[in-house]
């Protein structure tokens, strides 16, 4: 048993290790690059935060709708909608958001990127919230009914608080995943750099920066890509770790 | 309908049977004592006296069993009334046992003296009283409240008979001094019989309570 565990660990970590090794080999740590890493890091964090800010309320309300408020027919349609949305490739979502947000607003932005990422996160949050609400002990529901609480108060003040820990876990997961997304960002949050301009008007999130930097063969670019990669790996590790911490605290 | 718990059912049956056994013993003593008086068999009367010990033992056993059922089964409704009635009835039966012994003692004394004519009336009274006790116990056995009420109605006649015997004994005593001892003993005997009738009446009252849930004690008849 332990041999299998060891083998799978090696199998999983090997590419990771190889990647880190390559990055460490090609990295260039000039002042400009470190500065760029920092602003890209900031952009990534901002992007994830805005994504959560959009996806969380919409997802939770959708979840409440599915679990509490809709009739069985409506539930079936809504869940179908969510499943469909979840199965659309992120890059396609990005193209959709390009049409409805980027064009009207006249340019790329973190906001557009966040919308695209939120669209893919909402189904997960909604369906998880719905499931969590369904799992709330019926005795709590009875208690609120017995106390004469109106339905909406029971829902928002009691049931939501009951599922808060679970929802927080899902949200942390969403945050961590948004950090690594690139497909949805290609047509939405892409910086002016991608269009070839020399001076960036706003920083792009890390994955996008890596994508751009990697395409240029110069050692400087490659070094920059490596630096961004390492930063991203660090960021994702930290936030995954936090998400796991949150889950264990809630148990 | 029987209790779903058959052990409980059998405990109640045992209680009922014990009460009836006690009643039967009391009846036996009184009947045989009066027969001994009529046939002047002193020895028979003497042999009956120790039976009181058996009657007293039965009282103790019945009380124990009733208490155990109360503690363990927490009876309600008719079971509760049954137990409460039994507890009261055994005290009446125990008193009847004592009175029966008193009758035996008087019979022993009377057999050593010549018979008096008036003894006939006592025998008649005795028969009536024994019938009352018999009927009260039957009413208990079958749960017959109607029969029990009939027993209650007969007490008055017994009281009247007793009063009559009492006065006839007084008349006897006034006729001659020789009669005084015998007449006094016969008076006592009659009084014991009258008291047995009162206890039989109490038993009948408890039967009515047990069956109907009505407390007819101290009610005008």
């Amino acid at each position, binding site marked *: 048993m332990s041999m299998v565990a060891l083998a799978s660990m090696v199998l999983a970590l090997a590419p990771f290790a190889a990647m880190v090794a390559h990055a460490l080999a090609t990295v260039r740590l000039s002042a400009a690059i470190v500065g760029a890493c920092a602003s890209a890091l900031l952009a990534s964090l901002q992007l994830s935060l805005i994504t959560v800010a959009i996806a969380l309320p919409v997802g939770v309300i959708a979840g409440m709708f599915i679990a509490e408020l809709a009739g069985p027919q409506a539930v079936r349609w809504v869940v179908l909608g969510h499943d469909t949305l979840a199965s659309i490739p992120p890059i396609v979502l990005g193209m959709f958001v390009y049409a409805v947000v980027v064009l009207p607003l006249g340019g790329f932005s973190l906001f557009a990127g966040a919308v695209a990422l939120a669209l893919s996160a909402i189904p997960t949050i909604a369906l998880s919230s719905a499931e969590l609400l369904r799992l709330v002990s019926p*005795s*709590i529901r009875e208690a609120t009914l017995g*106390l*004469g609480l109106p339905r909406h108060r029971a829902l928002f003040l009691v049931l939501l608080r009951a599922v808060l820990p679970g929802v927080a876990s899902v949200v942390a997961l969403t945050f961590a995943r948004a950090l690594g997304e690139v497909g949805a960002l290609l047509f939405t949050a892409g910086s002016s750099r991608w269009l070839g301009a020399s001076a960036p008007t706003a920083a792009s999130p890390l994955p996008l920066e890596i994508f751009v930097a990697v395409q240029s063969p110069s050692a400087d670019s490659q070094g920059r890509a490596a630096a961004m990669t390492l930063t991203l790996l660090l960021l994702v590790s930290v936030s995954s770790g936090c998400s796991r911490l949150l889950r264990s605290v809630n148990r | 309908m*029987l209790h*779903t718990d058959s052990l409980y059912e059998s405990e109640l049956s045992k209680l009922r049977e014990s009460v009836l056994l006690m009643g039967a013993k009391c009846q036996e003593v009184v009947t045989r004592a009066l027969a001994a008086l009529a046939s002047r068999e002193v020895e028979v009367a003497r042999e009956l006296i120790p039976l009181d010990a058996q009657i007293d033992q039965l009282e103790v056993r019945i009380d124990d069993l009733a208490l155990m059922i109360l503690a363990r089964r927490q009876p309600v409704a008719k079971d509760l009334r049954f137990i409460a009635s039994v507890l009261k009835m055994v005290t009446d039966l125990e008193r009847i046992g004592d009175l029966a012994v008193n009758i035996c003692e008087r019979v022993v004394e009377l057999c050593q003296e010549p018979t008096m004519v008036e003894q006939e009336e006592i025998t008649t009274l005795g028969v009536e009283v024994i019938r009352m006790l018999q009927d009260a116990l039957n009413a208990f056995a079958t749960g017959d409240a109607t029969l029990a009420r009939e027993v209650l109605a007969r007490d008055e006649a017994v009281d009247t008979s007793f009063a009559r015997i009492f006065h006839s004994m007084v008349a006897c005593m006034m006729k001659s001094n020789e009669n005084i001892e015998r007449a006094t003993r016969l008076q006592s005997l009659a009084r014991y019989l009258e008291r047995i009738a009162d206890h039989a009446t109490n038993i009948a009252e408890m039967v009515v309570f047990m069956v109907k849930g009505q407390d007819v004690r101290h009610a005008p008849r």
Partner: protein
Amino acid sequence: MTIPKLSVTDLKAVIGTVEALRGISIAVAANEVLAIIGPSGAGKSTFLRCLNRMHETRPGATMSGKVKLDGVDIHARTIDPVWVRRRVGLVFQRPNPLPMLSIGENVVAGLTLAGEYIERRDELIETMLRRVALWNDVKDRLGKPGTSLSSGQQQRLCIARALALRPDVLLMDEPCSSLDPSATARIEELLNELRSHVTMLIVTHNLQQAARVADTTAFFHEGRLVEHDRANVIFTNPSDPRTEDYITGRFG
């Protein structure tokens, strides 16, 4: 003639295809303690839930007949079910303190969650906890979660929570069935003290409890009210043979 606190006329209730109640008519006087006894499935819990309009929240449940609280029909169009549930409190079989709230917060949950401002909140919490004989046990840990108490204490907390809303009527659905004998005894003692504050209806499987605690007793069987009388009478000399068979344990 005084209006009874609670008056039920020809109450019928259906759950799906099952007739749970087949025309119950009963009146309960103010400050009376009514015990409702009967075999499982007799409709006792359904009856309670019709009295605070919780029955209608069950899917597939319908009812007909009148239920009047102080002469007011609780199902009238102008009456808000939420108002009914505050005037008629319900304590459930299994204690259900709200796990996300502390002990103190649980006591006043009915008011705070409804958005009401409580004057002298701490005083209210103390009064209610004293009333259920819980104050001394928990006064030093009011901030701990409501679920950190033993089940007997949790049930008393739920009673305190129901009482904080100052209901007229308190319904209790087998309140002691998940508690040990000493916790049960404490709650029965409590019921005696609560008499002066509320009218109580208690569904119980424990006949001795009904005999100890109740003023009046109602025997339900197969959705019908078979007998309703003073507890003394029911337990010493009931009129209906079905009642007698049930309480003496002769139920086949």
